[in-house]
């Protein structure tokens, strides 16, 4: 196990050092390896109960954070703790954010969408107007018409995981706009 970790560390460091000189291929390999590691780490942090779309979303956010903050790694330190530190920060940050507004997500999910335009407290058209045409189509197909992710992804020519992440982001956006 330790030997395997040391091998991963060594490989990642080599790829990272090549990336520092602008080697895009090495960086792509680096990020691919990081994505797998982050996924494993997030599952360890959250347990298996983490919904798939949330995991996908979080994983993307961590990889994006690693990309944005790649200059904060110092070469004299091991790389894996740095990756896990960012992953953990993102996970905790996301957890805290959700903890602040958990009820609204449930309410939005279960009541407003099921009741559609019957809700008097929300101007449904106003909320939908906040979305881009593609987001609106995705949202209406999945959350209003109840179409499956696979079918929607096929119809809209996107991957299933992209559709899931997209819906998750839309829910997040709408959640922030709902009056409390």
């Amino acid at each position, binding site marked *: 196990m330790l030997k395997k970790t040391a091998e991963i560390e060594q490989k990642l460091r080599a790829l990272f050092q090549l*990336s*520092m*000189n*602008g*080697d*895009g*291929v090495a*960086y*792509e390999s680096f*990020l*691919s390896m990081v*994505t797998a590691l982050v996924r494993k780490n997030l599952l360890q942090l959250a347990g298996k109960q983490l919904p798939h779309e949330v995991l996908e979303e979080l994983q*993307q956010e961590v*990889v*994006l*954070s690693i*990309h*944005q*903050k*790649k*200059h*904060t*790694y*110092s*070469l*004299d*330190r*091991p790389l894996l*703790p*740095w990756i896990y*530190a*960012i992953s*953990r*920060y993102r996970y905790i*940050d996301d957890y805290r954010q959700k903890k602040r507004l958990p009820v609204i997500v449930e309410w939005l999910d279960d009541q407003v969408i099921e009741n559609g335009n019957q809700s008097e407290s929300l101007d449904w058209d106003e909320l939908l107007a906040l979305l881009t045409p593609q987001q609106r189509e995705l949202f209406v197909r999945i959350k209003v018409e109840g179409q499956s992710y696979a079918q929607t992804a096929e119809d809209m020519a996107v991957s299933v995981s*992209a559709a899931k992440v997209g819906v998750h982001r839309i829910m997040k956006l709408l959640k922030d706009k709902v009056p409390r």
Partner: protein
Amino acid sequence: MSTVKNLASELRPFKTTESLSVFVAKRFLPVLAAFVVLSFVMVNQKEILGIRWAQGMFLLKNVLWITVALASFVAFYYSSFPQKARRIPGIIAVGALGLLLVLEFFQLNYAQLPAELHTEMDLFRGGCGVIISAMSMGYWWMLKNWAQQGAPRSPGMTGLWASIAASTAGCVLMQAVCWQEGTLHILLWHFLPLSLASYAGPLLAKKWLRW
């Protein structure tokens, strides 16, 4: 996978973070030097300065203030980067600050306290606090901007260390300038801005240092 491809295509050559020694040399020492120079410019009784520097307690307190400023700056540096968590600088900073407080309380003249308090309520005496606050606010803002380039795991703690580093650098400045040596004066007008900054810094940092 398309995200990874897109990110890889955006890649440009980059450098990693500065080492601690470079960070201190570039971002702490010039500020401290500027504060010390400014303090000598502001001193209005330069002839007594030599006598003051010969006093052991004055020297000890200056050393302690500088220790707090430097150690909290190092703690700030460590807290601004994901894998650099180290506790020792923070412990040194808090220890030195605690020692300074103990020294001040030890010298407090409790019999004269009401009279001293009355004197200290004068607005002119509170000038120290205003100068320390003004200096530390400017430096705190600079530290906050540097921390934004990093990736603080705990923005509140980073904000706290930035507040202590900035305020104590301001206190180092006032240590030489201020001729009011009363313990109550130091506790009120030198420690108060530090305490307020230590309260406000983490709150603001939690808002501004999220990434």
